[in-house]
């Protein structure tokens, strides 16, 4: 297998703290006799304030990697440190608490609770925490104004558009001031206008609030908003691209180029 090394490391980011450190992560499915290895030894570092996109053809293991890193699924092998805690050795109950305190999630189909209003949905992750009501209220106001959904606070999910739902979902992911936000195809169900608007906001939040985000996507346009894009193929990291000081258009072009090399065998045939 040809490894295309394309790393241009921006030295100013070196001083920042490592948020995620994954080493030799492997994941297999199936039982004896019929084992399928989906992740075949992934090493990945993410530093504070990064906006990492994960791309790759179908079946490359993108979502599996996200699930494993996000503690929703367990790795078969390897170590994963998030903010210094080794999540690969945590018990289930402790993992839950970890997810609640340290992580945020944005899903493709929003996963909002239909029975709760926008505000109730957003405040849900901190409902068992020790945050005071006043403090929580202030946090809600600040996040909902960044995401432009303050007006929608008392609406139910069925009353708002897909883009607004995804903004709600994003606000919910950010409310607990997570070390890291995981997003699984957040624009997958949105039209292109809502998608770019949401991505713009995410990039904005990433910059202003220094939130670390990891996003799985198959859309080159979406990943052009990232500061770094990691390409997966057959369970390995195939290549990485840094945006650096390039314009988004230029970065998009670069991503397209890598994808053309990558996707020739599996994406187009599908």
């Amino acid at each position, binding site marked *: 297998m040809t490894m295309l090394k394309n790393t241009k490391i921006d030295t100013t980011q070196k001083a920042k703290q490592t948020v995620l450190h994954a080493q030799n992560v492997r994941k297999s499915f199936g039982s004896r006799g019929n084992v399928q290895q989906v992740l075949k030894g992934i090493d990945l570092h993410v530093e504070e304030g990064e906006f990492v996109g994960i791309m790759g053809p179908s079946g490359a293991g993108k979502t599996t990697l996200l699930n494993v890193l996000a503690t929703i699924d367990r790795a078969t092998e390897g170590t994963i440190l998030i903010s210094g805690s080794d999540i690969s050795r945590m018990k289930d109950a402790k993992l*839950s608490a970890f997810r609640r305190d340290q992580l945020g999630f944005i*899903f493709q189909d929003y996963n909002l609770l239909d*029975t709760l209003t926008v505000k109730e949905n957003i405040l849900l992750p901190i*409902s*068992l925490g020790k945050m005071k009501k006043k403090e929580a209220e202030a946090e809600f106001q600040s996040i909902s104004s960044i995401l432009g959904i303050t007006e929608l606070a008392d609406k139910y999910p069925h009353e708002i558009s897909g883009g607004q739902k995804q903004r709600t979902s994003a606000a919910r992911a950010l409310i607990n001031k997570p070390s890291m936000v995981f997003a699984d195809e957040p624009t997958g169900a949105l039209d292109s206008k809502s998608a770019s608007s949401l991505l713009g906001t995410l990039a904005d939040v990433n910059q202003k609030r220094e939130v670390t985000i990891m996003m799985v996507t198959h859309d080159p346009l979406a990943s052009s908003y990232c500061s770094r894009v990691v390409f997966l193929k057959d369970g390995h990291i195939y290549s990485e691209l840094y945006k650096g000081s390039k314009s988004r258009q230029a970065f998009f072009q670069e991503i397209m180029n890598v994808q053309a090399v990558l996707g020739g065998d599996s994406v187009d045939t599908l």
Partner: protein
Amino acid sequence: MSRLCSGVTALTLFDLVIRSMRKNIKHYYLYFFALILSVVLYFVFATLQYDSAILELSGTNMGTAFQAAGILLLFIAGIFVVYANSIFLKRRSREIGLYQLIGLTKRVVARLLIVENILLGIGALIIGIAVGLLVSRVFLLLLMKLIGYESFIEVSFSVAAVVQTIVVFIGIFALTTVQMIVMVFRNTLLSLFNSDKAGEHPKKPKTGVSAAFGLLGLLLIGFGYWFSGRMLNELFFFNILIVLATVIAGTYLLFRVTISWLLFKVRSRKEGHLGLLNSLSLAPLMHRLKGNANSLTVITILSAMTLTMVAFSYAMYYETERETDIRMPFDFMFDNNEAQTNEIMGEMDQKGIGYQHGKVDMLVVPTMFEQGVFPGESFERPTAIISDKQLQAAGIDIVAPKDGSASYHDASSLSMFADSVDLPIKIEIQDEDRTTVEITEMGERNVINWSLFYGQLVVSDETYQSLKNKLSGMEGAKIEYIDGFHILEEKDQKTASAIFQQPKYTSSGPHVDYYSSYEESVQDNGLMIFIAGFLGLVFLISTGSILYFKQMTEAEQEKKSYATLRQLGFTGKEIMKGIIRKQVFVFGLPLAIGLLHSVFAMKAASFFFQSDILMPATLAMGVYTLIYTAFAFLTIGYYRKTVNAAL
């Protein structure tokens, strides 16, 4: 696949049915279980109805009781099955839509469902009747024990019961078939695909209107409760209807408006800071309250009715011995008939039956109570004045009050008013002087058997003698006597009763004796409590199952929410806490309100009973609550499984 598209032949349709049934076992088992359960219960009841031992025992009143209960049971079974079927169809609406999407016509889909329904129906009948055969013996033993039947019994296989069950259930299956056809032909493809997402979205209630209706609900129930304690007048049955109507309407408003209004108030005070527990209890409850108001009302009213019925009949059974006791102080007695008295003593001596005999004189005079003791007009009534000394000699344990005052005994009519009368009261003898006697005690029990319909006034021997001297000459006064008997050995009671009940012996009133009265009322009340208990069990199982089924559907619908919550980092335990809180509400509310309703119903009915019905009522409520709780635990178990499987 190509066979499917190019028109469905009977064979492929059948194949499809079998395949879809095998794939959907999970959905089917709920409906199938409901069907089997209904068949079992109905069949058991039908078997008992046709059982030769019971037919032999049952008099006309028993027969009618059984028939009435059978009709009631038919209705419950029908409603229950139709309800279960509607939940079942709702869960499968996506599948039904899919069949139409791939090109099956509505007719073919309907045929498919009907074939399925027939297969399920036949299966349920076979299994239900088989299980029914096994358990009917248990129920028969229970019934025999309750009515005090002691000889050997055997359940015979009753063809009539089988036929009746099959006929009834073919009727019910026809109903569900119609339901299925309506479902297929009435619904658009779109609504079929969206029906699992259905459920209303809570709207902001109009504050003024909601508050008014919410309050009205509480007022209606309050009025019903208040009025239930004041029903005892000429319009008794009309009053019962008023109470029923106000309480049922009030309960409906309570579920439909009052509670959602209260919940809305609580929720808006939280200002969005709802918390996990409320997000899992308050929010989904509000989401579905409108749709659930009907079933919650029905369940509450059914619970209240069941509880009242069971507690009432249990209290009757519980009181049987006491009732007979207080009405019949003698095992039997003759009135003014020396010849028959002597004859029966001869017969009993001959058979070696030990007895105590006492002769008691009575002065019977027309009397009237002073104004205000009885509600309405006071009326003239003959009262027997009796000396306590003579009663003591006849084996009745009684001492008259001193100073010429009297104790009054009438277990059959005065009991309704005994509690509300302030002693002492005066009774006025209708002679020229209007002689009055003061009553300072209300006796709880009769001093002579009830078959002489006189009020019974017990005085000291001196007072008796002086009243007798004074009044025996008045118009309408009579001197009468009774001969009372106590059988000394319990084992002789049956023989003595048989002797007394020979046609040659007569009484001027009903010819009754303690032993046969007791046996008869044990039999009647035993049958009544059995029927009430059986129907109660059926009610309970149906209402509990309906709640369980509904919650199962809800759990399925909310599965995705649980997955989300787990991903957000809430543990299964934390989620379960919220769900348990919801179940406390879903099961607890109808139960609590049902219990409260039944408490007032029993309070209103308590004038039927001489003794306190607290004991039997509490016991009935306890058992009911226990079985209900079991359903709640089943439901929680199902939720736990769903939550754990969610991530």
